[in-house]
């Protein structure tokens, strides 16, 4: 069993494109990925596609075949849905299919159209990733859910809104050279602390923006890449997925994300690496506190110590443990169904040296991507390594 290779990737500019259809966004990313890989579309065995809110945002279900058509594939296509981890589970499915010999080439991707339904519409659509009976009917929003987790974290481990502001400042600064990013604007700690509150204690700058965008990657087996002379030096060496109760009220922890712990353990064991081997990480910072949960679940920090990592400069591009060099969801943007594959593309580019922030990890050989769905009831973790 060899590790699948990332043969090519494509990502649209993330941002506000209310007039662009999901199919157009995905076509741009998918065709870019195919061109980058240099793979004959006739060789593509399947499309694994992530999308979360297509029914609400575009009145469009059954998007798998639609998106295959959009990038010129005559291949079976399946949509994966796990809220904001939709693309992460699509990647995991593709890795498993390539490993077990079911396929030689799979296009994996995702897209989301969100800004066309406005802030209220998007808030409503995102909320349905929570438990409808017990959370949505109690007024839960996604910022609200993460605010509940934030307050529980502060109560259990300490930390402050100012620590979270440093996460936002860092990720905005990282995005300044990433032309795919939705927000290329530096902010200060004061800007973050003085921003309007969305759900106390979280403010506007603790939250990722509402985003339109798409991402795609072409994954192949090692043997296909060799036989076809593909330039595909980065392998996916580990995959993991964890789950938890859907509703926060039913969880064993309000200040931890056990689903991410499980996904990380599985992915690390699969790749035969540990947290100490990770040179660079792209994590699911839909809210600033989410980055803290992620780096603790990934074992990059002890429980309760992730909150000060950004404040201490450890996770910025000059630090020993750079996190979200793309700008993260916070500044790069978060078209929810595309995010997991955008993270995969970012780590690939950081490891092969083609990302504008690759100079932060010049000798990096191992990266990790952490993609969380809902309030982390679904999580995937993938380990990527330079194989050649």
């Amino acid at each position, binding site marked *: 069993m060899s590790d699948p290779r990332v043969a090519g990737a494509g990502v649209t500019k993330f941002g506000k494109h209310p007039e662009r259809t999901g199919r157009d966004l995905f076509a741009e990313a998918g065709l870019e990925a195919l061109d980058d890989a240099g793979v004959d579309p006739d060789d593509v065995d399947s499309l694994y596609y992530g999308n979360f809110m297509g029914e609400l945002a575009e009145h469009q279900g059954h998007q798998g075949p639609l998106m295959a058509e959009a990038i010129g594939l005559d291949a079976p296509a399946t949509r994966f849905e796990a809220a904001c981890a939709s693309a992460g589970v699509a990647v995991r499915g593709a890795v498993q299919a390539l490993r077990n010999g079911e396929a030689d080439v799979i296009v994996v991707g995702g897209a989301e159209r969100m800004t066309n339904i406005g*802030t*209220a*519409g998007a*808030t*409503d659509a995102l*909320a349905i990733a929570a438990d409808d*009976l*017990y*959370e*949505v*009917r*109690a*007024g*839960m*929003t996604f*910022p*609200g859910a993460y*605010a*509940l*987790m934030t*307050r*529980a974290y502060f*109560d259990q481990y300490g930390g402050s809104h100012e620590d979270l502001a440093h996460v936002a400042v860092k990720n905005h600064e990282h995005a300044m050279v990433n032309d795919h990013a939705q927000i290329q604007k530096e902010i200060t700690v004061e800007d973050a602390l003085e921003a*309007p*509150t*969305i*759900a*106390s*204690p*979280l403010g506007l700058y603790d939250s990722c923006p509402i985003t339109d965008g798409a991402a795609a990657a072409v994954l192949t087996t090692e043997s296909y890449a060799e036989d076809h002379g593909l330039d595909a030096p980065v392998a996916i060496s580990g995959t993991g997925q964890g789950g938890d*109760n859907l*509703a*926060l*009220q*039913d969880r064993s922890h*309000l200040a931890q994300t056990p689903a991410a712990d499980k996904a990380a353990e599985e992915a690390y064991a699969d790749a035969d690496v540990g947290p100490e081997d990770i040179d660079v990480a792209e994590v699911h910072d839909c809210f600033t506190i989410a980055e803290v949960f992620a780096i603790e679940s990934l074992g990059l920090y002890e429980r309760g110590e992730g909150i000060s990592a950004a404040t201490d400069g450890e996770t910025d591009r000059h630090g020993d443990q750079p996190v979200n060099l793309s700008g993260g969801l916070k500044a790069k943007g978060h078209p929810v169904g595309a995010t997991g594959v955008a993270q995969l593309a970012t780590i690939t580019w950081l490891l092969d040296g083609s990302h504008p922030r690759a100079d932060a990890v010049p000798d990096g050989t191992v990266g990790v991507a952490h993609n969380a769905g809902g309030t982390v009831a679904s999580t995937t973790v993938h380990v990527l390594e330079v194989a050649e």
Partner: protein
Amino acid sequence: MSEQAPDGEYDEWLDAIADGEAYYVECANGHGWLPPRRVCPTCGSRDLSDQRLPEAGEIATHTTITVPTPQFEDDAPYVTAVAEFGPVSVTGIVRGVDPDAVEIGTMVGIDVGDRVTTGDRLVVFRPR
């Protein structure tokens, strides 16, 4: 109020709270959950029985939401909280107290109220 079919045991559970007979579901091994449940997610037991919910719960975490979904537009700002009632936790909206006075550890009782925006029923916590 929305015109739609009731949600089975969930609406029966709200009825019970409104009647002062709030309950939770307990499995043979003592794990507590809220209805509807046919199996305990912790141990797999299918031997479930109704148990009286404790009169008072303790707020485990809370937030004041200022940017709501459209279904709560006229309710905002409001306090959503998770409160621990013995073996189960419940999510609800805290009423009858200044939002700034809500704290982790605040003791609350459970009730059923109406959503301002739509008139739909919801779980309400009040300090006690």
